């Protein structure tokens, strides 16, 4: 296979084409005719996965602003996995809830295009464009349910605050351009490394603005206000998609910018992120305990998880960098599975996402209750699940860089978080079901997808070394 100027964007092209084909197919669909649109989306996503695997170790670059280094490919594989799982779980739900299938899958694919490009971008201009592509698609997916007041409100809130955060990011990019005269990440890195910029107020302002912009997308305190509402109002599967895909893409771009281009300024931004990570872990956990809606609870849990991820960036050492990637993989699998279970249990009439709705789930859906338990244990960080290993690596990275307090705060907050995860488990197994209609049967394909996901969570928890080594190798080639 020869190399060409397009190599680095082949995975993105696969997904884009799939999105266009889905849109076209939908426009030729007659009313009431059924089309395997989800299947078309899957073909594109699997094609992209194959392209990512083939591009491994080739360090392809295209157009001077897209790279396919192993770091980008690793995160892209996480994002594509999230996408594939979301499509598999959606097949049944899209029909049940009467969502517009063509638009749903097309927007999902365009959001994935944005995410992948954001991870692969080596130019701030492209980072911004990709971020907007992803965001706009996700805003609409949040409010895609017909006549659903909560969903519409959530989408609107997410959109307004998201536009505001994008403005901050753009302002930061403009300042960075003003100081360095370039938007290319390599160029910025060279200029920042060549000149001591430590006292330069303009670059400090740029860094602060970038932290606000990315902090919003990643959902860290104090930029988290939108996420419980958006996560609760969106259809559960979309929530699973946006709480993992959006977070993974934003985190990856954040890490690339801060750990490569702005690495010389680490003494300036590390204390800020230290504080943000600490409050995020504490607030996400403490407020999460008080929630009675399962989606809100998982929203706060994902805020806390964003805090753990930031710890990896603050640590900034080799262990920390590998830990970020491993944590993203573990968190993505776990959260997608968790929200998928919530989505599968809902009906068109009622979302069934209250904590009380899970009473006695063991008696009606033993398999789902069992899978949910493993997911919750992984979120809480119990061995032998992926969540345990991921937290272990993050905290050991923090200790390795001398951030003992951050590790202690992280450890304590995850102990507290165990309380609310276990509360759900207790609810599922130890309470009797009151007189409520038995939920609908779950599609076999969704069940199979869930089983595979949970098996992957256990695999990452029991035999993590392969993936850890892969993560460490992929990130060490980049920065």
């Amino acid at each position, binding site marked *: 296979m020869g190399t060409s100027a397009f190599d680095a*964007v082949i995975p993105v092209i696969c997904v*884009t084409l799939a999105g266009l084909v889905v*849109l076209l197919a939908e426009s030729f669909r007659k009313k009431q005719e059924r089309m395997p649109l989800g299947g078309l989306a899957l073909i594109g996503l699997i094609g992209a996965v194959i392209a990512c695997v083939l591009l491994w170790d080739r360090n392809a670059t*295209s*157009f*001077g*602003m*897209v790279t396919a280094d192993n770091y980008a490919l690793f995160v892209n594989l996480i994002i594509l996995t999230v996408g594939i799982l979301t499509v598999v779980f959606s097949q049944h739900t899209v029909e049940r809830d009467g969502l*517009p299938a063509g*638009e749903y899958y*097309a*927007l999902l694919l*365009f*959001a994935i*295009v*944005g995410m992948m*490009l954001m991870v692969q971008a080596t*130019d701030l*201009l*492209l980072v911004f*464009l*990709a971020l*907007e*592509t992803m965001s*706009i*698609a996700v*805003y*609409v997916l949040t*409010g*895609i349910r*017909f*006549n659903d007041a909560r969903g519409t409100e959530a*989408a609107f809130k997410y959109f307004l605050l998201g536009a505001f955060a994008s403005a901050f990011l753009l302002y930061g990019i403009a300042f960075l351009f*003003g*100081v*360095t*005269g*370039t938007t290319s990440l390599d*160029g*910025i890195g*060279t*200029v920042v490394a060549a*000149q001591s910029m430590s006292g*330069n*107020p*303009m670059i*400090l*302002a740029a860094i602060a603005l970038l932290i606000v912009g990315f902090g919003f997308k990643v959902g860290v305190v104090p930029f988290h206000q939108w996420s419980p509402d958006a996560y609760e109002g969106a259809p559960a599967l979309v929530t699973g998609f946006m709480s993992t895909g959006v977070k993974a893409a934003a985190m990856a771009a954040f890490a690339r910018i801060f750990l490569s281009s702005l690495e010389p300024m680490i003494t300036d931004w590390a204390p800020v992120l230290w504080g943000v990570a600490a409050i995020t872990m504490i607030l996400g956990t403490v407020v999460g305990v008080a929630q009675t809606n399962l989606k809100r609870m998982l929203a706060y849990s994902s805020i806390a998880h964003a805090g753990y991820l930031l710890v990896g960036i603050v640590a900034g050492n080799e262990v920390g960098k590998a830990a970020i990637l491993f944590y993203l993989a573990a968190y993505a699998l776990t959260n997608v599975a968790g929200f998928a279970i919530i989505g599968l249990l809902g009906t068109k009439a009622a979302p069934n996402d209250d904590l009380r709705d899970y009473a006695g789930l063991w008696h009606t859906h033993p398999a789902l209750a069992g899978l949910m338990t493993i997911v919750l244990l992984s979120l809480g960080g119990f061995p032998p699940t992926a969540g345990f290993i991921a937290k272990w690596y993050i905290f050991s990275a923090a200790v390795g860089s001398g951030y003992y307090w951050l590790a202690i705060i992280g450890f304590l907050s995850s102990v507290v978080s165990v309380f609310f995860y276990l509360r759900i488990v207790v609810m599922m197994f130890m309470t009797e079901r009151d007189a409520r209609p038995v939920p609908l049967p779950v599609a076999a394909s969704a069940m199979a997808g869930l089983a595979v996901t949970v098996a992957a969570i256990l695999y990452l928890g029991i035999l993590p070394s392969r993936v850890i080594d892969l993560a460490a190798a992929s990130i060490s080639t980049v920065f």
Partner: protein
Amino acid sequence: MGSDQLLFVGFGALALLGALAVVAQPNPVYSVIALIVSFFGLSGLYVLLESPFVAVVQIIIYAGAIMVLFLFVVMLLNATREDGSEWDRAHPYYRPGPMRLGAVLAVLFGVQMIWALTRTVGLGVGVGETRPAVESVRDVGRVLFTDYMFAFEVTSILILAAMVGAVVLARRREE
């Protein structure tokens, strides 16, 4: 003060005052018109920065097309004044305490930005690579379809996603 600086102060003041009027107006129609004034000020600044293309585009697209849309929406809604004063006081963020805190934070942010901008020496002296100035339409076109070709293509996906999204959100009433 040279004529350049006079013009800069004039256009800058126009842009700022227009922007202030946008938020200070209780009548949305006046707000839209104030925004047009502000855009004219900005466009003057672009001319002073020797980028006439951006200046013209600012007038044609923003002050022209987008503002007409804005005005249409305002008129269609028949909103002659903000009537949110009653209901939104109930929201916790609209109580005096949070409002004041927000005002303080906004002022602090402004002061910080002004401090950062005035303290930075050697601004505008392209520290990094020096790229040729992009002035004429020809230069813009050349840069757009060479260096930024890929970003330009990505914009098409962005617009397509936005279009599909708008259709999805607007269609819901009929179904």
